[in-house]
């Protein structure tokens, strides 16, 4: 099938090639066949399918590096399919799924299971990370070589920190043998045990168990030492404090192979949003002080923070409708990732190109994916964005199976209008509602 789709009258934004210009794009056989400022300018495209973008942004589909689902094991919270529907609605064409499932993705056959399930059910691309230690227990490293061959794109214990430094050192040394990427979670497990929120005046007034913000930087510093020792490629999945940012900036300056991400909720919310014990505000890393939040905005603007992620972590009513201390951590975020990120552009914090880079070219480069660009020959994973479209988040309108959004009732402008994966339209806002 030689299917052609012509996009015309678009604002092409491709951070990978520093492109930001009016123009057109041609999709052929699921791949980008041509792209450029002069393409389809005169509206004479004879293609059977011509899409007039009306000046809206046409960008590479977003890559979300940090998505938790419930498949396998907790399908009532989220399946690969339901997560993919939420992703498509959010303009996300690749979701990188965490191994924190039941069973844990720590075996080559389970990586294979995720890939086959995704191929059969998911509307967007699903890229699995595998566990770094067996059963996420932080004791015994996984078969990094065989898991890589099976298709694991990186190794992580998800939202768990490996507390045994010797185990982590060996795991990093072993991973570096294969050039594998390790994704770490920085939260000292002893300092943060039992804590629900970040330590501070507000937590004190609420009387909630809290962990110091330094619990993050302590692990960041430790892990950087180990990276220095082992030469492993290392990515901090989500950072949230100014102290972490400073340490990572210094490490990058020393030339260490370190990258980091920030969750949308740590960019948009702070500790006060916990309000009257709203458990949807109980997230990892916890919502921090305003100073830490603005540090995250600065980090994105300066490029020290490489990627913005949703940290999508669907929780059902049974785990969230609880006293705050007993409620589960986590927030859904696939559908609010782009709107939150665009906020940085609207506020003049970062250029549109930089914002989109953290969602496309940067994660693609870190993960080594053939995606996140409008370059000719790459798969036609695309998102059409109306950056002005105003809307208010209503949990009832979310596609995710779980509805635990911390942005309920909050207004944004800018969101995905159409999403394409391999040239197939997987989401069209007009067609839906």
């Amino acid at each position, binding site marked *: 099938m030689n299917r052609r789709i012509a996009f015309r009258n678009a604002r092409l934004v491709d951070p990978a090639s520093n492109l930001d210009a009016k123009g057109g794009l041609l999709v052929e056989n699921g791949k980008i066949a041509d792209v450029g400022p002069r393409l389809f300018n005169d509206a004479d495209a004879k293609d059977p399918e011509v899409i007039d973008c009306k000046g809206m942004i046409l960008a590479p589909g977003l890559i979300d590096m940090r998505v938790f689902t419930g498949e396998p094991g907790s399908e009532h919270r989220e399946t690969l399919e339901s997560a993919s529907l939420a992703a498509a609605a959010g303009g996300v064409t690749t979701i990188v799924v965490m191994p924190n499932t039941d069973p844990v993705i720590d075996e080559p056959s389970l990586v294979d299971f995720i890939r086959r399930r995704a191929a059969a059910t998911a509307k967007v691309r699903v890229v699995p990370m595998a566990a770094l230690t*067996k059963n996420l227990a932080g*004791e*015994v*490293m*996984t*078969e*990094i*070589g*065989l898991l890589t061959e099976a298709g694991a794109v990186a190794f992580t214990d998800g939202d768990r920190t490996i507390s045994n430094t010797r185990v982590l050192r*060996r795991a990093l*040394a*072993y991973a*570096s*043998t*294969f050039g594998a990427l390790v994704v770490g979670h920085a939260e000292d497990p002893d300092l943060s045990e039992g804590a629900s929120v970040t330590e501070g005046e507000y937590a004190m007034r609420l009387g909630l168990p809290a962990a110091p913000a330094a619990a993050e930087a302590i692990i960041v510093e430790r892990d950087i030492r180990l990276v220095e*020792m*082992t*030469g492993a490629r290392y990515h901090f999945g989500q950072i949230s404090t100014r102290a972490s940012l400073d340490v990572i900036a210094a490490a990058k300056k020393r030339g260490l192979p370190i990258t980091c991400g920030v969750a949308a909720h740590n960019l948009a919310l702070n500790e006060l949003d916990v309000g009257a014990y709203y458990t949807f505000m109980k997230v990892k890393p916890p919502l921090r002080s305003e100073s830490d939040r603005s540090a995250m905005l600065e980090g994105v603007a300066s490029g020290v923070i490489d990627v913005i992620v949703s940290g999508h972590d669907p929780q059902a009513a049974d785990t969230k409708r609880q006293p705050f201390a007993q409620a589960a951590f986590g927030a859904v975020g696939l559908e609010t990732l782009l709107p939150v990120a665009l906020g940085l552009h609207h506020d003049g914090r970062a250029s549109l190109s930089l914002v989109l880079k953290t969602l496309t070219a940067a994660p693609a480069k870190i993960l080594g994916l053939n995606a996140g660009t409008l370059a000719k020959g790459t798969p036609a994973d695309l998102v059409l964005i109306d950056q002005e479209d105003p809307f208010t988040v209503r949990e009832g309108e979310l596609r995710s199976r779980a509805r635990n959004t911390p942005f309920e009732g909050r207004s944004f402008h800018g969101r995905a209008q159409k999403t394409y994966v391999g040239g197939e339209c997987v989401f069209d806002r007009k067609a839906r509602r």
Partner: protein
Amino acid sequence: MTTARAETILKSSHLLGTETLSVGEITALLDLADTYVALSRSNNKKTDVLKGRTLINLFFEASTRTQSSFELAGKRLGADVLNMSVKTSSVSKGETLIDTATTLNAMRPDILVVRHQDSGAAELLSRKLDCGVVNAGDGSHEHPTQALLDALTIRRRGRKFEGLLVAICGDVLHSRVARSNINLLLKMGARVRLIAPRTLLPGDADRFGVEIFHDMRKGLEGVDVVMMLRLQLERMSGAFVPSTREYFRFYGLDAEKVKLARPGALVMHPGPMNRGVEIDSAVADDIEVSVIQEQVEMGVAIRMAVLDALSRGLAVEGRNAP
């Protein structure tokens, strides 16, 4: 009693490692071992160069192969051989190494062969005993007779050390065999590659003056000799490598990987082998490439040469006088 009929080979009265051996000493030991290969292949395998001498094998770690090799070497040279293993000695009753040494010293042995789990144990004994000490393996430090027998095997296969490309593969981190071989081979003019995952290599391995490879396929390209190392069972299940199946997949020597080496390359293993972990049976048992059985034969000859050489030094220095 041996007379001055034979020339001195070793400057030291101990053999603690290959690091301190000179090219001349190594060559002389290999030459002498050649004569003992011939002797061991004849009907009368015995000679009397160690007649009247007492050899004690003190093994704190079990090793059937090395211990019996030394025992046989001593007996073929006419020495009285006493085997002491840790289970029958007072060390298991809490005696310190020094006390054991003092006790043994009082029995006036001429040569003590020692295997110990701690690096430096042979060195310590050599300072406390009046007899010659042969290191039969100390911790992760040295195992000089293994490196010498490997060299003898290589040389008898007609290979020249100068420019020889040798790959040492596997658990270099814990291996005394690797350290002894690296010292000896570099000294003799060979080039050495180490092939292992980073978890099984010391961080400063390149300081040996060797090339480091993490990809076994790349490391094996064009090598003349492949030396496989044993991976201890307790190191296979997560601490250093995640599993035996993963280890075999990436670091096990199979027929396909052997093909990457130079045609006619030799495959060696110090034994005992973990088949299906570091080496495929198809390779280990392939008489076209594997010289593993030959290594065992050379082991007896080289140990005869070492004991002979050390006994000459003892006679000259008269260290055995009351």
